């Protein structure tokens, strides 16, 4: 191919084609993070052990139904809950077993679980987080729980320039 690439000289004539993709319309995975503590207080702020057994069942059912529905829409990736009890672990030098400590009562942020979704855009992620937050609590009323919505880091795109 020629170094001067005359044929590659741009000419001004314009057709039309589709829009570039931007962050707003890219499919992406999001993490919906639930906290035991550390999140702002919800509207319906009654601890779960103060609910009626039926209210607990209704809550569990709501979460399960939402996960099932998201599998049906092709948006569910995973959902898991973690125990509030944990241990802090750290490397303690060559040849030594890891050192453990805690739990630390002063730790502000305590994660309860998460749901991972794969959706078409940020608006859809917000919508689903809103639904998850509407899970019923005491009195069968929505908890209005504050959830943390965070995008996953993606793979790099191939075409960047």
């Amino acid at each position, binding site marked *: 191919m020629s170094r001067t*690439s005359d044929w590659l000289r741009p000419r001004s004539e314009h057709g039309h084609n589709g829009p570039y993709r931007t962050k707003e319309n890219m499919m992406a995975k999001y993490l919906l993070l639930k906290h035991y503590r550390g999140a702002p207080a919800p509207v319906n702020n009654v601890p779960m052990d103060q609910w009626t057994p039926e209210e607990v069942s209704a809550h569990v059912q709501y979460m399960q139904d939402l996960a099932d529905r998201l599998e049906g829409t092709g948006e569910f990736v995973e959902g898991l809950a973690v125990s509030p009890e944990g241990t802090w672990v750290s490397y303690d030098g060559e040849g030594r077993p890891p050192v453990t400590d805690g739990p630390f009562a002063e730790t502000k942020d305590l994660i309860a679980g998460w749901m991972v979704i*794969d959706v078409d855009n940020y608006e859809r992620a917000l919508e689903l987080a809103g639904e998850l937050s509407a899970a019923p609590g005491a009195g069968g009323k929505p908890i209005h729980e504050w959830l943390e919505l965070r995008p996953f880091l993606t793979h790099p795109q191939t075409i960047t320039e």
Partner: protein
Amino acid sequence: MKPVDEALLRTLAPTGIGVLVRRGADFAAAEDAVQDALVEAMRVWPDDPPRDPKGWLVTVAWRKFLDAARAETSRRHREVRVEGEPVPDPGEAVDDTLQLYFLCANPSLTPASAVALTLRAVGGLTTRQIAQAYLVPEATMAQRISRAKRTVSGVRFNQPGDVATVLRVLYLVFNEGYSGDVDLAGEAIRLTRQVAAKTNNEEVAGLLALMLLHHARRSARTSPDGRLVPLAEQDRSLWNTGLIAEGVDVLQKALTRDRLGEFQAQAAIAALHADARTAEETDWVQIVGWYDELVLLTDSPVARLNRAVAVGEADGPRAGLAALSELDPGLPRHTAVAAYLHERDGDPATAARLYAEAARAASNLPERDHLTRQAARLNVELRS
């Protein structure tokens, strides 16, 4: 045991769907039946390879379709309307495969659904392979595909489509393809070649050229330890000259027809990079010209951002920063570009601060690591 020629098998998928649809199956049922037949072929062919793979696939898919139709009918207590004997094949008067591309890229589908449906119905990939590639559970991907098929159930199979919609889907497969055991970039090129062979459209050629020219750089784009290697630092001897020559040839033929579009413009930029033996030899002035075209064609902020980078190379970092200052600072990669231009402008302190900020805002891990290393490199220099 003979390994299955998966590439051949995959090319048979759209053919099989086309035959079943012309025999009276609806698209969704035909697609399911062919998918089942593909899975069976993978299982059976290693021990018992067929003499006529296409005939085998069509026969098995037709049988699967009839079984499913009968099961469905008996569930509904209705008469079986489809006869066991296949109607004679009317022949491929219309191009079934091209029609399938249009259907799978129908504008009523979301990008993710169109990608999944295209990879299964036209690409012949299994649901499991697609799920692995996009890192979602197989059940979720199966549902995404079922829903996509329901969404297009009202669309006539032979309805004329807009090739631009197909190109957007193929671009996504190439550009945002993830991992898994399927090479999605290679698959995107295979499918785009197929569309190019069946259409006479400059933008199809433009997209094919764009893919080939970027694919040519694949082994230079990451270091053996997985680091992102920026274009300027790539070992150009690793670039695949065969793919570059083909991409250039495809693009050249398209450009002579004087119907410019965004993919041809992007491919021209890639071709100019490919034309430079070293980064220093890059013809940035021409590249700026092509970005001007691209901005006029797409009015895209991403194109404007990349244009600012090119202006910085062509006319100096001050000119690049001036171009950058006209853009929304919230654009992805805006801060990274600013960091680069400030470093070129001899302001390492500002550059280091901006690189660190850009790293925090990066949307992917290799890019974040790259930007963090840039900040770290400048901070070491600043301390000494």
